[in-house]
């Protein structure tokens, strides 16, 4: 499989599922070309609504549709949809409305548009809300699995997707399950827990580290909430060193979730890799280098962390 943006995989999955499940509807806020729901809207014009540049209203309308038995996918850039946090908090989370919130354009990887268009604090915000599960797939296959699962799951889900193409990382036959992580590569010295776009960078970093005699286990943590405590603790108890990798603010995301669990269950030296401060405009590769999220940056941080 070639590299593909997880938002593109989402668009294909939605079209496919929509043909089988008439409950599925799509809502957009003037970004349907970017969230990739446009194909679904063409195929099912009476099940797709573009509500204009009005994300709060879109979320509320989604909640209302869910309360009549529809399964709405409510879509925008992660920053804009989660920017309407308090609407999500009451109309979706507290209501326990069966809304699937899709936030695309995760992280600094979007590049040149800069901070105002980057979803950077979305996982931290949504993770705090009871009832809402948080899923960030790492490649095309995992995205399609996660979307199919979300459509069947009763309850609100937040799905975080990439603008950029990402290479396949999951093995054939893999099935996404909430609360289950996937070890992509075994290792003895350190556990790299990665999610979303940078998972392939973490794998590449593990290969670089291997050349330096460091054996890194790499875990794809698509299910950020609930996280996979069993896999995390089992790996951490073997390697005794954990590094989290995500294209998200350093505070409150996957790294925060891992820190919360480990500190209570199995205190383990931990290094969180993510975005410090605000993002900024730049080419995606340059931004990943600046924020230490490319393979070389991850490998360098791991070595420093291990004192090598």
């Amino acid at each position, binding site marked *: 499989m070639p590299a593909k943006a997880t938002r593109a995989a989402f668009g294909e999955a939605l079209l496919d599922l929509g043909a089988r499940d008439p409950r599925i509807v799509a809502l957009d806020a003037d970004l349907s070309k970017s969230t990739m729901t446009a194909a679904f809207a063409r195929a099912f014009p009476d099940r797709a609504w573009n509500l204009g540049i009005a994300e*709060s209203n879109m979320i509320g309308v989604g909640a209302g549709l869910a309360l009549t038995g529809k399964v709405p996918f409510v879509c925008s850039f992660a920053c804009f949809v989660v920017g309407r946090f308090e609407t999500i908090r009451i109309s979706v989370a507290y209501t326990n409305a069966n809304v699937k919130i899709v936030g695309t354009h995760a992280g600094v990887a979007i590049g040149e*548009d800069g901070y105002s*268009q980057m979803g950077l604090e979305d996982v931290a915000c949504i993770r705090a809300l009871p009832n809402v599960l948080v899923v960030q797939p790492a490649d095309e296959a995992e995205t399609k699995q996660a979307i199919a699962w979300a459509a069947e799951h009763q309850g609100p889900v937040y799905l975080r997707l990439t603008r950029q193409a990402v290479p396949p990382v999951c093995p054939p036959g893999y099935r996404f399950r909430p609360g289950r992580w996937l070890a992509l590569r075994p290792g003895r010295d350190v556990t790299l827990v990665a999610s979303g776009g940078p998972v392939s960078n973490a794998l590449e970093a593990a290969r670089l580290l291997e050349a330096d005699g460091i054996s890194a286990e790499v875990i794809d943590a698509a299910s950020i909430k609930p996280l996979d405590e069993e896999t995390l603790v089992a790996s951490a108890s073997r390697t005794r060193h954990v590094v989290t990798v995500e294209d998200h603010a350093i505070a409150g995301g996957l790294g925060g979730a891992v820190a919360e669990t480990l500190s209570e269950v199995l205190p383990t030296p931990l290094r969180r890799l993510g975005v410090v401060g605000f993002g900024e405009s*730049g080419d995606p590769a340059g931004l990943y280098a600046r924020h230490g999220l490319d393979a070389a940056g991850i490998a360098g941080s791991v070595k420093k962390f291990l004192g090598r």
Partner: protein
Amino acid sequence: MADARLEAIARECRVQILRMLTHAGSGHPGGSLSVIDLLVALFFGRLRHDPKRPDWPDRDRVVLSKGHAVPALYAVMARAGYFPESQLITLRKLGSPLQGHPDRTALPGVEAATGSLGQGLSVAVGMALGLRTARSPARVYCILGDGEIQEGQVWEAAMAAPKLGRPAHPLDNLTVILDYNKIQLDDFVTKILDLEPVVAKWQAFGWAVLEIDGHDVAQIRKALDQAEATRGVPTLVVAHTVKGKAVSFMENNPEWHGKAPKPEEAIAAVREVLAVSEAAWDDYLATDPATRAIVDELRALETPR
């Protein structure tokens, strides 16, 4: 006369918009070209400002709420002397103060961080209120996109502005300009969520409302005069514009909302902006070294490095 000077500056700024977007390889030409005549009229015919003192407390403020059109803002700022025009081609590059959307902390003279649509008017209302209550003579201008005003926050601000500060400090120091180019991101505004009757809506909220051709310098000037003379209420200027104005293949075409031209497209666009025929182009360039340099620089982008 004065209007011809503004038209000449607007042409120069259009060229700079095309130049910087092409160097950046991404960005928003359509809404930058629709708003540029309004920004030129403000920066070169209206504002009390000093590019050397961007923090002067009594300066007039411009809040570009439709922040994705920031290439237009950078073009007028550079032309006015806030920073060198040579810096324009750093737009969107790593480390540049010319961020892809306005960043107040990165570039002196940018009044508000925008780019998340719908927030600028509230900030402008706050500025107008702060300046009024401080008895400052400064005026505040806020530019909204037509798609942008689908955001609920715009209507919260629109409802508040005619009431806030009254009776002692009415916000008649606030002028809002709607860049009514009829196109948003996904499609034409009427196909997504029609705004009409837009004039009646704002009037009902208590605004003085004017309607003009947003590319006609004389009409813009008169509207801004009238807004300044209006007492007791803020003014909305509904500026009918053309998205992608002055470049035939971009005009009225939703496809040019958010993609940069390729170098050869940009060169053709520059030629159209300057209203030179294809046949006369080479002769023209020989007479205009500044444009010649920009075109050469664009041509150099074509050859893959």
